[in-house]
């Protein structure tokens, strides 16, 4: 899966990394998806990889961010942001200034807002294409990257995207390498000044602990192991729904609008 060559010299890659949170103990750590993004960047030959984090620097985040340095990096750029700040402008400005070809990010953060929207907002603001759920970067040549996107049930889709672009990774990307204590400890956190903008929206939101929601049981009546396996591996088949082909955008929009109303998403 490694790209064999890049004729146009080195490839500037920036990986956006966040402070993760262990699901059981809540301890800070390198976020799993971000670490996979770092691993993906590491395996790109000829890539010059930068790590970028926007957030607070305190004892907890220091240890977590050093987890990324332990994967073999000498430094990590840190855009200092207070709690409750919208990191989007700071990241966008930093990326515009540095001008990387490829930006890799995890699908969503392990703590904080965790909406998974940041890559999209960033792509919108920078005007770059975004590809989600990446499994591998197969080749980068002539300003075009050949990507392998992970789809459900192990399917893969090959895409070509013009650089610069933002790609996000989830659990389908290769597992991150071990973070070594020595390099993690020796690595530098380069704190850089960045514009701070308060997240006015978030200040108005109310946060409460998530409740476990009831899950719909899938009742499988199967006589044999083969049937059970088929049921487990089968694609979810929607009973209703319709496939529209050769319709005008207006007709399509109309159909979607109607469905959303039916489902109660729009009122």
């Amino acid at each position: 899966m490694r790209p064999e060559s890049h004729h146009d010299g080195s490839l500037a890659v920036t990986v956006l990394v966040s402070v993760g949170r262990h699901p059981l103990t809540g301890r800070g750590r390198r976020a799993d998806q971000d670490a996979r993004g770092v691993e993906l960047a590491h395996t790109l030959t000829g890539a010059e990889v930068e790590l970028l984090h926007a957030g607070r620097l305190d004892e907890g985040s220091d240890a977590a961010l050093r987890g990324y340095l332990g994967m073999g990096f000498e430094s990590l750029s840190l855009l200092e942001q207070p709690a409750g700040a919208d990191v989007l402008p700071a990241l966008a400005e930093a990326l515009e200034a540095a001008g990387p070809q490829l930006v890799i990010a995890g699908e969503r953060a392990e703590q904080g807002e965790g909406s998974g929207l940041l890559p999209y907002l960033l792509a919108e603001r920078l005007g770059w294409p975004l590809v989600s759920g990446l499994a591998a970067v197969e080749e980068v040549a002539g300003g075009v990257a050949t990507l392998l996107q992970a789809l459900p049930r192990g399917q893969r889709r090959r895409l070509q995207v013009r650089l610069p672009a933002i790609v996000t990774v989830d659990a389908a990307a290769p597992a991150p390498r071990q973070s070594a204590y020595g390099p993690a400890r020796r690595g530098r956190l380069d704190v850089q000044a960045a514009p701070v903008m308060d997240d006015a929206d978030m200040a108005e939101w109310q946060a409460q602990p998530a409740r476990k929601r009831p899950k719909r049981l899938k009742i499988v009546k199967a006589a044999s192991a083969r049937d059970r396996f088929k049921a487990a591996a089968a694609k979810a088949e929607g009973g209703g729904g319709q496939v529209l082909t050769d319709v005008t955008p207006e007709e399509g929009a109309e159909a979607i609008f109607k469905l959303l109303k039916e489902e109660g998403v729009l009122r």
Partner: protein
Amino acid sequence: MLDILLPILIFAALALAVIGAGRRVRLWRQGRSARVPLLKGLAAMPRRYLVDLHHVVARDKAMSNTHVATAGGFVAAAVLMILVHGLGLGSEAAEGILGWLLLAASATMFVGSCFVARRRRNPPARLSKGPWMRLPKSLMAFSLSVFAITLPTVGLLPQDFGSWVLALALSAVLVWGLGEMFFGMTWGGPMKHAFAGALHLAFHRRAERFGEGNRSTGLKALNLDDEDATLGVEKPSDFTWNQLLGFDACVQCGRCEAVCPAFAAGQPLNPKKLIQDMVVGMAGGSDANYAGSPYPGQPVGEHQGDAHGPIVAREGKALVDAETLWSCTTCRACVEECPMMIEHVDAIVDMRRFLTLEHGNTPNKGAEVLDNLIATDNPGGFDPGARMHWAADLELPLMADLQQVDVLLWLGDGAYDMRNQRTLRSLVKVLRAAGVDFAVLGNEERDSGDVARRLGDEATFQSLARRNIATLAKYRFQQIVTCDPHSFHVLGNEYGELGGHYQVYHHSTFIAELHEAGRLAFRPWKGGSVTYHDPCYLGRYNGEFEAPRNVLRALGIQVAEMERSGFRSRCCGGGGGAPITDIPGKQRIPDMRMGDVRETGAELVAVGCPQCTAMLEGVVDSAAEVRDIAELVADALVELPAEHGKGQAQTARPLAEEVV
């Protein structure tokens, strides 16, 4: 003519030996500095040699007698030869005692060398061949020629006996002998073991292990304060100088190889080869000249290195492969068996530290286990809040509630393991039956750090250890009891360096004491024959061989001993993170151990370690049942006569303050 020739030869050989010694010392001094009391060490050396070393050699009676005759004869002959033939002290008093003593010494040495020669006729596989095969001949050459040149000195032969041809031939043989014995000693021949070995004994990194009944088995802490220092051993020169000296002392007798479970299982580890590779690395070169058994599955001659090059390459080959280092179960069988007192396990863990802390290359599940330890304080990644779920119905008293008890029961990570939970429940039943005042830390307990440390992650070990020590410091207790020998060893022997000093008991020791004090009564054993498997971390690491056997005896069980038991017990394969790094071999170590059990015909193997239980129970198609000593005791419990039990229970209240 010999009168002129002999002093020249002797002093030339001595001078060459001194030059060689200087070169050898320079090689050792490539290593890191280490604080060793030099004069005290030299003063203690004869005792260490004559008592401690001889004690190990004497496990093979024939070999120890051979060595006493050869080495004793040589040392005496060498000293006397210098006096008599070198300085001419014998000729003034021809009938003087020196010459006769020299004859006796060289004769003794010759007898010894005959036995060495006999051993080399059909040498066992563990012995190195190559230059070692010429050693008996060299020993004979030396002893015979010294004997012959001394005959005229004492007047048994006329001074001008024989022609100059004979004198010349004799001189030639003597040159050979002197060359091997003096020149070879410091220039890298087989006799190097005598020179390096003597100094190694004097400057040993674990001086405290010498002396009757003494042990020193805890790993030494790595200094993590210096942020810029490379952690662990990357290059041969990263070892301390006395470690390098220790490697150089190896006699290649292969006793370590014979007892190594990883070698027997066909994993790519041979402790002897590993030590020789370190010697190769120290001097620079390739392992092509190594003449012993290779690492299983790896031909000799493909690896090379030098003192300032990497031991393990990130890619390709260097001095040794990482798999070699990760095959070790840290069972210490090699260290126990080594007549030169070389510390193989220390060296292996030193190199693992580099691989884990600097390369981030702990193989297989190693990285995951270490991440779990960092995030959840247990290797399985379980919820720390679920640590006591197994005992939900037992209403175990918590230290947090009681603050002060007699016995702190350390559960270990076996609390998460369903098999070990049975052992823990049995142990609780036994403690309650004996009226022991005990409590557990509950969710405040963390992994002891054993696995992290042996996987080379010293940072996580020290972090866990310091937090455990801080927790333990909050409470008052007299002793810690645990059914996990790994926790036992770490708490008892390795926390001390970090400031935690505790009186720790393995549950078998504690149960044996309870029984001796009359606080437990057992119904007689009705089952079949039983054998006992010594856990490495209880036996070899802590010298506890008797207590488990005493408990079994008290239960009315006659232990059918395995051939390899006690200090020679074979590892179950579960130590040192070996099941986690899981280096493939030709067979599995626990299968071999269950084979040992089968040979005794026992229907049940008693164990005292959660790791051993898991490893041995994992053997398919085994005839023997695996049960922990605590389970056997709990099953055999009967009520004590009422008033007897009451009185004992009352005296069991804590009388003294805690020991911290």
